[in-house]
């Protein structure tokens, strides 16, 4: 789906997150238009995960605003935000390892359980591997299958924006390509994607726009095609 640059669905204004005297994020500004794939890049500890956690309501901003579909959501809790259409897939996938695949998917539809049947059909059509594994305990799935389940769970919710925290971490190169292709496929189905990644080479291939975080601050942002050739990015991430 081509992004609609006119329609900003998520806007972060001057957001600061502090743990005591330490700034995890400082005056962060970010905009996401409907249908975009936006990638946050930065080294470990740059503040990528904190930014995603703040959007989903796990961390409360000390200052600033998070506006989703023209509503201020910075003080909302994760249950409210998830119901309202933002879903975060954490680094480990966020699946419940002792529950079955089916139970994980049922929990994905926690706030919309009446629509479970129609949603599961869509998810299984997209990820047929889950159909064979429905009764299997999620902890016994392979790493790649667990990522697929994490995607399935996210699609069971009412999300419009999917946020992914380093989805390629710990996966083999073959799975990494698959993960990014899945992200692109989901984007084509209408999902807006916000992705925190260290695998800049892969992520930048699929991104519309890139934000670079360093020490909790946005130091660069722009179209992916422009930033790929930016000397700072080239030096830091492409080794040239």
């Amino acid at each position, binding site marked *: 789906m081509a992004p609609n640059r006119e329609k900003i669905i998520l806007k972060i204004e001057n957001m600061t997150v502090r743990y005591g005297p330490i700034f995890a994020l400082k005056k962060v500004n970010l905009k996401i238009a409907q249908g975009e794939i936006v990638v946050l890049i930065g080294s470990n500890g740059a503040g990528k995960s904190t930014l995603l956690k703040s959007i*989903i309501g*796990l961390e409360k901003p000390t200052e600033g605003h998070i506006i989703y579909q023209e509503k201020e959501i910075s003080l909302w*809790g*994760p*249950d409210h*935000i*998830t*119901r309202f259409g933002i*879903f*975060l897939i*954490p680094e480990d996938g*966020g*699946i*419940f*390892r*002792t*529950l079955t695949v089916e*139970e994980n998917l*049922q*929990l*994905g539809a*926690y*706030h919309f*359980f009446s629509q479970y049947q129609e949603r599961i059909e869509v998810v299984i059509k997209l990820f047929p591997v889950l159909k064979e594994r429905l009764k299997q*305990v999620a902890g016994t799935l392979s790493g790649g299958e667990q990522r697929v389940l994490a995607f399935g*769970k996210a699609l069971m*919710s009412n999300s419009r924006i999917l946020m992914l925290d380093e989805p390629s971490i710990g996966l083999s190169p073959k799975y990494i390509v698959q993960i990014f292709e899945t992200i692109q496929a989901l984007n084509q189905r209408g999902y807006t994607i916000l992705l925190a990644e260290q695998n800049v080479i892969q992520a930048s291939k699929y991104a519309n726009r890139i934000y670079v975080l360093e020490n909790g601050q946005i130091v660069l942002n722009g179209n992916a095609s422009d930033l790929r050739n930016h000397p700072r990015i080239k030096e830091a991430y492409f080794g040239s």
Partner: protein
Amino acid sequence: MKVIIAQIINGIALGSIYVLLVTGFNLMFLVGKIIHFAYPYIVVISMYACWGLLKLTNNPLIAVFGTIISSILLHIMVEPLFRHINTRKGPIDINSSFIVSLGIALILTEIMSHQLNYGFPIAFPLNWMSSSIFLEINLIRISTGQLYTLLVSILIALALFILIYQTQLGRAFRAIAENISKARLQGIPILRLNLLLYGIAGLLGGIIALLFSMLIGSASPWLGEYIALKVLAVAIVAGLGNMKGGLICGLVLGIVESLIIHFLPGSWSNALAFLMMLFVILIRPRGIFNKNSIES
């Protein structure tokens, strides 16, 4: 032989109450992330509420509802204390919850010792105890109280297991039990479900109080401690948080206790529970059914 069969029947009735108590205790441990040592104490003070209501109104229906409501209210009242402990920054400190629960237990014991019935044990009316005989074959007797206890316990245990394993609420409870941070991220409303959990624990506690009052017909300020120690022993023997293990161990303890009473003085029953606990801790430190999970 007939005496032994009779004692086994007594034991099953008693054990079924232990099963409910341990189930409530384990549910609080897994989902509420607390060691709710005061749980049996709240059951006992609900027995006092039942006794008081019976005395005041002489109406069993009011007593039944009053007991259940008092147990639910007491649980809802203590919920903010545990919530405060569990929502502090950093990892959940289950030891603090144990100390707080112990404090609640001591306060409840003091209230019962000084403020209720002048500290004397209470006795329920004979007609409340359902001591009429339902079935009698030689020495083997099953009272209607025992029958009620058994039937209600089976129904409640079944309902709880269906709730936990077959419903969306149960799945959410199990998700919280596995990992509260992931559950929060999933959008599961932790605070609301926590309150509901205390409500369910209160409902269960109220029913246990009713069953206990019908089965043993009396209560004293020290009954809470007597039961709490056993519940703790059973939960540890089964494996803390192991719902199915608690079911088996609770039943076994009830039967063994009843058999012991036949051969030894009744006061040995507590020692036996702790002997079992020590033995199990030595050879299986995480309990017989050793997975600390609601799934096991």
